């Protein structure tokens, strides 16, 4: 792909692409040059001076420019008078690097000794102890003893919240900080959140935050992973466990469609004797999340061990939900299904695994019923045809690629996609951000497109000339302000543009839906579709991982309602039978990401109470209703999927678990190099091929665009930190979840005589909502933005509304 350069490191020849840094070149041949400030994902700064090496370059005759050779005909190498930092030095042809000479060894010892002069000796109580790059490098390179007098050690604050003690997610221990600037560089370069920085100078240099709330970044937790010492810890994990007590289970994040690869770190509790999730860490998958995760994924796991979890099956007796046995409820549900005469509806949420959804679909279809996905975003069938081509990787997109993001606030809906799209734009990709209002993505966009809500398809059609010259084209669409009909039309328009410009079936080309839930794509693949017309009155309805009553969306009334859930939701409270389901952490399964990557997760903790996996419940109901023997394991259900669902043909739990060497080399034993992100040993997943990838013909179709709302509109928007059923159980995040509010344009606010922070009454579709108004310049004139899932009424789509001062 690029020019290769050959050099020698400790007499071992190595060939690396031009521009590679010496430290990375050495890594390729397992020569671990120690580093503190260097991180393979960040620009080098050469601050810590730990990576000093001897650098030799071939000598040339000054007059002729010819390479000089010795008697044996080998090139003469001139070594520099000083040591050089391997982390800042790009490779040069014929370069000779020495990493194990007396000078280099002494330099490493010297630098470690310097760092330790002001580093506290509190490893026994430090969260990083056991997985600490400084500890490890001290053991390998440091002096055995210190010549620094202990009493002269500098003492600094050890418990500095980056924020206030009430809202800080990250704590700083100033004494432990070795001023490597990894955290500040991460925030500046990777996250684009310029909210932390250095203050003062010399040994007083400290990390400070200057945002409100403190360290206001959706990616703040990542700094604790790449911190090479215990200076940065999370409010959630500090003093919770020692790293060597933790067990790792590979998992997949279920909070959004990115499908970030995770490690769940569990520890057996001395009190309960049960395994508990202590922290969530990123697992390297360069094609999905690299080594990053957002704070929702990192901190939003507490629902798994919530005391509010359903633990036992319940059945309604005398108007009350009462505990029952599995036999009793399963038999009753099976009997109801058999007697429903085909009037059966299965409604599921996209939080569930492919196995769950497949089993539900099979069960319901087996009784002649219908299934539906609790979602208002359409286009999953188009993704199957013209989705992002196999081999696509946001990490390789750059110059020549155009990325269009329409009707989505990517940072709030799929943060790691936002991160990767931003970086692609910084590498030279042409980003076009289209929305009815400004989003943070605009900062990186070459072109910003504003439209009136309801005009999405027109806005997209208007981009035809802008994307004409793109080598590669990726379109990501969301459902902001759109209902099923609107988003389906938008998806079709996106697909049309891709097809007509021949940007399908190729790597780094195609369509991406910014789904509401982690496995919405999987649900489409398993045969579920968003509910277009509600079944008038089914005899039996099974609702799984969805809460239409709580979301106040229209839901058919059934004679008999079964709910499988984690919590007693509003829907569950009204049900006839409530079945306790396992969270993803208690079982195994697969999820299909928005990029159509089918990925496995593994059990990490024992199931609570009598909880069963959703797929297990549906299989067992099926068995009792005469549909054949229940599958005994998720792997067997997946084998069924691979047999039945064409796109999944050939996939198996084995193929999903395959791994290969990933660059940069981080995780595992190299934790000092890249931080404590985890090596991926459990599977990279498989991106299934689209119709276009398989060479099948794909054709355009005319979208049916619904009528645009007139006058003032209320627009539902998405916030990452909301009051969702699962996320809201992470109390550590509560200070970051806003009180209900709406956003209104300053011109509209002026007309209504409303100032920022004042309470307004918003009426939509006959319901009135009272909320604090923000007049912060984000809402376009004529629109009121209504963040969803904050405790206000849910809106299906941008709807005509009226506003008045409360």
């Amino acid at each position, binding site marked *: 792909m690029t020019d290769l350069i050959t050099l020698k490191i400790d007499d071992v020849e190595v060939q690396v692409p031009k521009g590679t840094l010496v430290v990375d070149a050495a890594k390729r041949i397992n020569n671990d040059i120690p580093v503190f400030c260097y991180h393979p994902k960040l620009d080098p700064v050469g601050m810590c*001076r730990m990576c000093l090496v001897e650098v030799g370059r071939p000598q040339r005759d000054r007059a002729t420019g010819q390479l000089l050779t010795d008697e044996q005909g080998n090139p003469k190498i001139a070594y520099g008078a000083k040591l050089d930092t391997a982390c800042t030095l790009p490779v040069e042809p014929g370069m000779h690097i020495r990493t194990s000479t007396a000078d280099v060894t002494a330099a490493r010892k010297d*630098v470690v000794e*310097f760092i330790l002069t002001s580093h506290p000796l509190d490893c026994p109580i430090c969260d990083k102890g056991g997985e600490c790059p400084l500890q490890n490098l001290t053991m390998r390179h440091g002096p055995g003893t210190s010549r620094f007098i202990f009493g002269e050690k500098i003492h600094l604050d050890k418990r500095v919240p980056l924020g206030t003690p009430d809202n800080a997610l990250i704590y700083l221990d100033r004494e432990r900080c070795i001023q490597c600037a990894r955290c500040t560089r991460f925030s500046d370069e990777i996250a684009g959140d310029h909210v932390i920085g250095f203050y003062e100078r010399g040994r007083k240099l400290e990390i400070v935050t200057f945002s409100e709330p403190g360290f206001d970044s959706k990616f703040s937790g990542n700094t604790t992973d790449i911190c090479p010492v215990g200076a940065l810890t999370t409010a959630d994990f500090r003093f919770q466990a020692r790293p060597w007590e933790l067990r790792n289970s590979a998992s997949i994040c279920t909070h959004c469609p990115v499908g970030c690869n995770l490690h769940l770190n569990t520890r057996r509790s001395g009190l309960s004797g049960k395994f508990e999730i202590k922290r969530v860490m990123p697992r390297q998958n360069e094609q999905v999340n690299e080594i990053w995760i957002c704070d929702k994924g990192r901190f939003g796991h507490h629902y798994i061990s919530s005391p509010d979890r359903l633990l036992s099956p319940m059945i309604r007796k005398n108007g009350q939900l009462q505990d029952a046995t599995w036999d009793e409820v399963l038999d009753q549900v099976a009997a109801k299904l058999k007697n429903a005469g085909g009037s059966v509806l299965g409604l599921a949420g996209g939080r569930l695994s492919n196995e769950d959804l497949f089993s539900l679909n099979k069960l319901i279809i087996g009784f002649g019923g219908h299934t539906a996905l609790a979602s208002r975003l359409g286009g999953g069938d188009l993704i199957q045809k013209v989705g992002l081509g196999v081999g696509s990787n946001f990490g390789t997109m750059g110059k020549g690629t155009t990325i269009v993001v329409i009707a989505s606030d990517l940072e709030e809906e799929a943060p790691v996609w936002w991160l990767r799209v931003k970086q692609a734009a910084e590498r030279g990709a042409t980003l076009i951000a289209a929305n009815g209002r400004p989003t943070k993505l605009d900062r990186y966009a070459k072109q910003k497109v504003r439209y009136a809500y309801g005009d999405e398809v027109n806005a997209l059609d208007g981009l035809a000339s802008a994307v004409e010259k793109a080598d590669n084209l990726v379109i990501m669409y969301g459902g902001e302000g759109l209902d099923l009909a609107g988003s389906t039309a938008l998806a079709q328009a996106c697909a049309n543009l891709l097809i007509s410009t021949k940007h399908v079936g190729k790597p780094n080309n195609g369509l991406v839906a910014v789904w509401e839930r982690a496995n919405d794509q999987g649900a489409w693949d398993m045969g579920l579709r968003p509910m277009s017309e509600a079944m008038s009155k089914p005899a039996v309805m099974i609702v799984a991982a969805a809460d239409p009553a709580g979301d106040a969306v229209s839901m058919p009334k059934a004679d008999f309602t079964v709910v499988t859930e984690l919590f007693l939701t509003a829907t569950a409270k009204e049900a006839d039978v409530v079945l306790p389901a396992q969270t993803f952490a208690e079982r195994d399964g697969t999820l299909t990401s928005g990029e159509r990557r089918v990925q496995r997760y593994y059990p990490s903790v024992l199931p609570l109470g009598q909880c069963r996996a959703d797929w297990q419940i549906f299989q067992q109901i099926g068995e009792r209703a005469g549909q054949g023997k229940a599958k005994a394991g998720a792997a067997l259900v997946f084998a069924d999927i691979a047999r039945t669902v064409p796109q999944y043909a050939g996939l198996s739990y084995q193929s999903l678990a395959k791994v290969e060497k990933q660059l940069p080399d981080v995780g595992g034993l190299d934790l000092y190099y890249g931080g404590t992100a985890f090596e991926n040993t459990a599977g990279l997943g498989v991106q299934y091929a689209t119709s276009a990838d398989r060479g099948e013909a794909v054709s355009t179709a005319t979208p049916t665009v619904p009528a645009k709302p007139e006058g003032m509109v209320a627009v539902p928007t998405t916030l990452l930190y909301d009051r969702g059923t699962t996320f809201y159980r992470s109390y550590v995040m509560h200070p970051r979840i806003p009180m209900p509010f709406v956003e209104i344009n300053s011109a509209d606010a002026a007309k209504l005589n409303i100032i920022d922070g004042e309470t307004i009454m918003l009426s939509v579709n006959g319901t009135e909502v009272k909320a604090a108004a923000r007049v912060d310049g984000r809402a376009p004139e004529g629109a009121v933005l209504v963040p969803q899932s904050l405790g206000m009424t849910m809106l299906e789509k941008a709807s005509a509304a009226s506003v008045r001062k409360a």
Partner: protein
Amino acid sequence: MGEHILLRHRDIPDIDKLDVYIQHGGYEAFKKVVTTMTPGQVIDEVKASGLRGRGGAGFPTGVKWSFLTKDSFPRYVTVNSDESEPGTFKDRELMEKNPHQFLEGVMITAYAARANVAYNYMRGEFWDIAVKILGPILADLRQRGILGKNLFGTDYSLDIFNHLGAGAYICGEETALLESIEGKLGQPRLRPPFPADKGLYNKPTVVNNTETLSNVTYIMQHSAAKFRENGTEKSPGTKVFCLSGHVNKPGNYELPLGVTLRTLIYEHGGGLPGDKKPKAVMLAGASSTVLATTDDILDMALDYESVAAKGAMLGSASVIVMDETVDAAWLTLKTTRFFKHESCGKCTPCREGTYWMLNVLERVNKNEAMKADVDLLNTVANQIQNKCLCPLGEFAIAPVLSSIKTFRADFDAHTKDGAKKPAPAAKPSAAKPPPKKDPASVGD
């Protein structure tokens, strides 16, 4: 030398007034350059003059300008008026008393560099110069059409802005200075890339000292040959020597490069007070190698090569004279405290090493150390050497290493096992006997 060049204000009263300056041929060089010369010709003339950077490194100025990356615009000129080296006080006088000559040098440099904007970066303590002197002058120049758009009817435009730092020694380092102008924390950047390639706002940038650019005016007013009439072959021109310490007449002296140290101290500085003997001298302010004032050193010519031959640096020619009463241990405590305070903290050896050295030196000066601590100090200083990101770390150890080498006895005199104590009392103390020293572990 009867007539001053850089310190011309001492000969011509009111030369800081624009009209007086113009009466004496002011801004004609700039006009000549803009209207009749190409930037390349200016660079060639400055190259021919052999002018070397007066900020400390002594790098040939014209050569530096010719390194600007071709075809990359916009470009910037930034003047390093940070003057943060202890013992240096020449730039203040140049800007305060002879500001037009300085500014004309900046303008000529900007034209040579094909820059349309120049920044004069001054330490925060120079706010009075910025507000009371240079600010009004720049406003005047804009009004008179000497700064602004389409100067002298050409298509060349230029403006100059003052920028005040916030009081950090490190911002005298050229890349930290650029960071500071950009509004960032004053920390040096990695080099390469050098400012001539990626400087201010990542664009090609010339960074020169105030005094260097004041010289440019003279060169372009007269000629490179005329400039070379002073100084030596390799270090041509005059230099403002900042003489301080134990001398009868401290102050700025503009003398040709190559003048001997003896002439500077005795002829111009009036010798040492009380006719004491000099003990040591620092030639480049606090960041100097401390030289014992032997006859050899006193007769040394003060130019870049001769000083380097003695293992020191002429630097900004901030000559600090110390008489025989000065204790080298006290001296290094002073310099080390300064450098520890000014270490920016970016790289480990400087940040931690200066802190460590200061701790040891404080113990030494409190008479609480052993001779082995002096050895440790020497080791720590050596441990910093050649490992730092920028020259500050090297500056910090220069006085320490040279003082220990030359004046070890001063340090030992403070130690418990090296002090020449009065004869022990007849009766040993009832307290614990002093620990027996392992001779192998004792330095010296």
